[in-house]
């Protein structure tokens, strides 16, 4: 297992290097750089050339990348070109916000989605299954940003209330923190509850149709025991995998929800950094997105091994 993980880690790191290089080149291909934005209408001057040299934008692109990579490997992500703040700090703060959003959504999706899915699976074909499936399809069909917008307007109209504007970390005030995150989490969770319940239902149904489960039921084994002994074990692995998938999906997909609810998360940081052509921040934020995806996948893999000894062979 150790060797396997090492290999996986190596492959993932290679992916990260290629991905960051691609981003490095791609963002520089978007017309207009940070200097052009700083100069506004006063372009084409000596001052502009001086600024470009200051940022190292006059060097060949591969040298710029190698410089960045070298620093990144020592843990230095550089400074924001607009804010002058250390990128690592900015990205770290933003990541915590997004992570909290993701974990809360995941928790709700798991707490509601898994039971729904199990119920639907066990009562396959009954009205309750149809109802849950109906909800699932609706939840999966509604665009997340649209749901967010509707929720925001509905709550604002009905209760004359909207979330506070300044983000407060849960360590400072949990109540304020929850007041800020409640609506975005609800907006995100609708989709994920549906996705989760859908997925779990499918696995339960598959498990129920396995010959040995059918035999067990036919032999008169109590339903409760069938459920715990056979079905639950069979669906645990997919549930864990799916958790990872959902977390990655949330982290990568919150851009619009963060913008809509003015949350200072990673998605919004990326968006504004691309807008202001703040390359070091774009690089740093995307690096984190890529690394997180890697780590989550790795954890899912390890969880596999722990839960299911059979996996250790492969």
């Amino acid at each position, binding site marked *: 297992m150790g060797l396997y993980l090492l290999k996986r880690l190596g492959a993932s790191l290679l992916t990260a290097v290629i991905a960051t290089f691609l981003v490095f080149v791609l963002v520089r291909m978007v017309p207009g750089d940070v200097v052009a*934005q700083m100069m506004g209408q006063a372009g084409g001057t000596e001052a502009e050339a001086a600024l470009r040299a200051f940022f190292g934008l006059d060097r060949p692109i591969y040298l710029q990348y190698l410089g960045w990579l070298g620093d990144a490997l020592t843990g230095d992500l550089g400074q924001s070109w607009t*804010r002058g703040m250390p990128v690592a700090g900015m990205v770290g703060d933003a990541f915590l916000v997004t992570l909290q959003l993701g974990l809360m959504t995941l928790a709700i999706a798991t707490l509601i989605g898994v039971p729904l899915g199990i119920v639907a699976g066990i009562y396959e074909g009954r009205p309750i299954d149809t109802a849950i499936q109906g909800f699932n399809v609706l939840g999966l069909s509604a665009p997340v940003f649209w749901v967010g917008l509707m929720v925001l307007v509905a709550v604002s109209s009905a209760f004359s209330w909207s979330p506070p504007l300044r983000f407060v970390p849960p360590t400072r005030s949990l109540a304020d923190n929850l007041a800020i995150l409640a609506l975005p989490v609800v907006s995100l969770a609708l989709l994920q509850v549906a996705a989760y319940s859908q997925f779990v239902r499918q696995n339960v149904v598959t498990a129920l149709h396995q010959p040995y489960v059918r035999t067990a039921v036919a032999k008169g084994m109590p339903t409760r025991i069938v459920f715990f002994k056979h079905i639950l074990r069979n669906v645990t692995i997919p549930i864990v995998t799916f958790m990872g998938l959902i977390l990655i999906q949330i982290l990568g997909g919150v851009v619009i929800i963060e913008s809509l609810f003015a949350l200072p998360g990673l998605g919004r940081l990326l968006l504004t950094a691309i807008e202001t052509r703040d390359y070091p921040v774009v690089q740093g934020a995307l690096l984190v997105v890529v690394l997180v995806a890697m780590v989550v996948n790795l954890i899912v893999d390890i969880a596999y091994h722990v839960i299911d000894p059979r996996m250790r062979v492969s």
Partner: protein
Amino acid sequence: MSLILNARRLIGRRVRYGAMSLLSAAALGLASAANAQAELYGPVPENPQTGGTLEVGLLVEPPALDPFHQAADARIRVTVLMYQGLFYESADGEALPLLAESYEISDDGLTYTIRLREGVTFHTGKAMTAEDVAYSYNYIRDPENGSPGAGDFAIIDTVEAVDPLTVRFDLSEPNAALPMTLGNKYGAVVPAGYFDAEGAKNRMNAESVGTGPFKLVEFNPNQNLLMAKNEDYWEEGAPYLDEINFSFLPNSASMLIALRNDRIDLVALSRPQDVQQVEGIEGLVIERFPSLNQKAIDLGSETEPLGDVKVRQAISLAVDKQQIMEAAIGGYGQVIGTMVAGMQERWGVPLEELPNETVDIERAKALLEEAGHGDGFELTLTTINGYDWMDPAAVTLKQQLAEIGIDLNIQRVDLGVWINNFRSSQMGFTFNDWATQPDPNLLFYRHFHQKPEGADFRNWDNAEASALLDKGRAESDYEARRELYSQFQTIMAETVPTIMLFSADHIVVRDEAVKNYVQHPTGWYYGFARTYLDE
């Protein structure tokens, strides 16, 4: 030597906000009777309450807070509260002494001797001297230091401290706009040697080192900008608020919802039509103020067939500005000719005296016929992503130009792309949205003077107009200057390098408890230095 004390001219100034808002008119009436200080930043309130935190919503986040290296308007709007130049751009286009107290111009117009205000201290606690002033302006005008404002200060030959409270500026040629240039758009007076320290530029995002009425407390990306009252501000009693907290909201939907639910006390709306949605909400007051911005159609002569003046005239004759404005901003603005609304009275030519201003489809068609485009042609209009007014304006323009046989394609590009085209003088046929400081030289010179002195973004290449711009820049007598710029505007309307459509009003929506906020026509937030909360 001619001595000019600007305070003298303040007496009897006309109040032009009057039509716009009852409240601001009354307040300004008070101001004109008071002394020069009253005019700085807006009218001084009679019995202001002190204290409290004003919550302001911002739709555009300043990329950074460095007045020396950042040209973004979103930066200027907020840094004018923390940093100060030698002069203040008054609402109706005069440069009033700010950190300066008075100034003298030599007879040849080449030397400005400026006496500084006494008792000014920086946010760092250090007292301001002529050394600091000389250092600050010498820093910004050195191109090596990479300031976007360097070009504006290129007319300055030397800046020297004469004594602790006197500075002398020597110019390479006479320039009547010097005091306005020493305003608050670029640069400011900061402690001498500030930029010698490593990371000084970045430190401006963490702490302010200016002389303004507010100090920076914190600046959090994608979140907020918090300023606190400068307790040692040189004007006795000002400012009145303890804190101003600017929250950055990424879209107007979130902004309006926050405003309605009392999360925000005041917001200056960039899209006047947002106002419709808060009209009638109890406790909110809506006010309109004239602006110095212009929404325009630019016609780059490098793009076929816009090189032909007849084609440009035909387009101008087909454009119904009123209709475009109605579609774009729902009428919350003023149609303009060749001058932004806020400066029309002091510098503009009346619209009815300008050529090509009234819609005349027949003449437009005839002109196209003469130019060899009787069958019409295809043309691509560039609009900018994120500028909401451009989309409805574009579809309206498409309909108008169809009347004279021009088939308009609409292409929306990112701001970065657009700026690149603009700066390389490849504007083509595009919407533009820009603003100016209240001086005709600063408005026109760079945009419309022939290369290489000007940037001539539209490849207009008009020698006669350029000569007028040169004369206007050197002339310091108001009447003579006005005449020169009137001639310039007539040429512009005749040969159509640009079609200025309208100036959108600044619209401020505020809670009733927010008192005495007057929006400066630049859109900058000077007014908060005079605002108080009545709670």
